[in-house]
């Protein structure tokens, strides 16, 4: 991708927990200060700050303003906010760095899902005429998607359970994961449905958490880091809001975003996917053409930790971590973030270490 090269040079995240007594700004504080320390940069040198969070989730108008306190806004800073996952804040920061007049940016995302009920809250993101009034909740929508995948013969309930088993197993190496451990497919399949055809293991946990990272342009990145993870391409695409207007068993916007980001026939060594429900991992693997050579969600993915509004940004952090802490085993990684319902909006970010 032509333009100014940008790399990830430091990051931090709070451990995902079911219910944190830290306020959201306090969670942001921990993540941001950790990322700045990890990057080894003076916060006053940072040229741009961008955050992603959701006021509905926090439960207060302009709640993101108090989150900003955690970044330190004195002397005055240049900043922006997206009412989206922090991965889109990273996208905005990457675009900002393309202007060429600054050499670093801070990105963070945060959310406390514990304060409210997803079934009560999430219908409010739907269209107010047909979907919100019937209270269509995220688990029901994911179940519709799962049913479509099963009916199309593209997966079995066992395939879904195997996604969960692998996610929880991978999470055993992730200190920030909320759920981890050895699961047994037969036992999982013997459990009752939460919302058919989805069982408990097909659902993400409800999580509180925050994540932050520092971006730098090439020469600054090489000053700051021994192993900067370069962003080789980034793009995002969106599909219709109405579930009935698209094929829920496919993710054409993911395919398009990946192509625009520069994913060719060579596949990444690692992929961190925002597969919030187990069928979505299979849909995304197909959409990205990932085979067995790609390690998928070595962190455990969203089935192991799902701090909404940080989940996608954490995929980018975990992809970068797999590259820089993998002892050279991995050279390229793909991170995917999603927004909306049933993979409506998708972002693909390609990373590389040299």
């Amino acid at each position, binding site marked *: 991708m032509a333009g100014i090269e940008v790399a990830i040079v430091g990051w931090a995240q709070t451990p995902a927990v079911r*219910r944190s*007594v*830290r*306020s*959201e*700004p*306090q969670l942001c*504080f921990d993540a941001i*200060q950790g990322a700045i320390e990890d990057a080894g940069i003076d*916060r006053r040198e940072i040229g741009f700050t961008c955050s992603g969070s959701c006021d*509905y989730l*926090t*439960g*207060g108008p302009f*709640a993101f303003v*108090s989150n900003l*306190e*955690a*970044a*330190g*806004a*004195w002397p005055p800073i240049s900043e922006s906010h997206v009412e989206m996952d922090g991965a889109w804040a990273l996208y905005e920061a990457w675009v900002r760095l393309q202007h060429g007049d600054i050499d670093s940016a801070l990105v963070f995302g945060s959310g*406390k899902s*514990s*304060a*409210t*009920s997803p079934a*009560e*809250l999430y219908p*409010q993101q739907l269209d*107010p*005429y047909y979907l*919100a*009034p019937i209270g269509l909740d995220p688990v029901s929508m994911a179940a519709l998607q799962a049913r479509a995948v099963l009916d199309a013969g593209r997966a079995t309930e066992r395939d879904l359970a195997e996604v969960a088993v692998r996610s929880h197993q991978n999470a055993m190496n992730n200190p920030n994961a909320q759920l981890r451990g050895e699961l047994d497919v037969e036992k999982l399949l013997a459990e009752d449905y939460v919302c058919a055809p989805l069982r408990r293991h097909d659902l993400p946990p409800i999580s509180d958490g925050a994540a932050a990272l520092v971006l730098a342009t090439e020469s600054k990145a090489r000053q700051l880091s021994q192993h900067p993870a370069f962003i080789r391409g980034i793009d995002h695409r969106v599909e219709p809001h109405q579930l009935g207007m698209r094929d829920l068993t496919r993710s054409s916007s993911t395919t398009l975003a990946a192509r625009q980001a520069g994913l060719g026939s060579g596949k990444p060594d690692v992929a961190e996917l925002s597969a919030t429900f187990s069928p979505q991992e299979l849909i995304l693997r197909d959409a990205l053409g990932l085979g067995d050579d790609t390690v998928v969600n070595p962190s455990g993915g969203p089935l192991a930790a799902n701090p909404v509004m940080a989940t996608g940004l954490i995929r980018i952090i975990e992809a970068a971590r797999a590259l820089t802490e993998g002892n050279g085993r991995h050279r390229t990684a793909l991170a995917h973030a999603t927004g909306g319902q049933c993979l409506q909006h998708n972002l693909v970010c390609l990373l590389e270490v040299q």
Partner: protein
Amino acid sequence: MTDLAEPVIVMEHLVSLTYDEDLPANLVRFGEALIDGRIVGQRCPVCHRVYVPGRGYCPLDVIPLDVEHEVEVADRGVVTGFTIVAPVRYYGQTKTEPFIYASVLLDGASGTLGGQDISGIPPDQVRMGMRVAAVWKPVEERSMEGLSARGWGSVAGAVTSFTPTGEPDVAREHYQEHII
């Protein structure tokens, strides 16, 4: 399809969301002190600003603040600004008579408490620079009501309003940096 006699042009869609959260430790201590009749803030050891209530960090120096940084401030101060609200009827409005929405800079604090009622004086006599003191609820009625991890805190669980002390007004230069 149902043949409607009249097209639907308005539909009612009332939204109610419930939030339930634990207070962070700094606000628990703030609330406990309020019930005890004390207003506690956190003093930053770098800039020496006192935040009421404390946030658990200094937003200017970006350092964590904890129990060792907590200091008591006075329950009295100066009105730095106010609005006389003439309530109009809307869903959820419980007030019927004009009331005051004032910012109060407590002695010892570095920022104002917003949205405070001023009692014991007709609204049209409230003025900037006026010295006021907290009107505390009876001990048995005090609670942590209104305290929340979002926003910038509240004393409403223990203080009903502020009332004039009768002291001379404070000159504008002493509070002008707090006028919004």
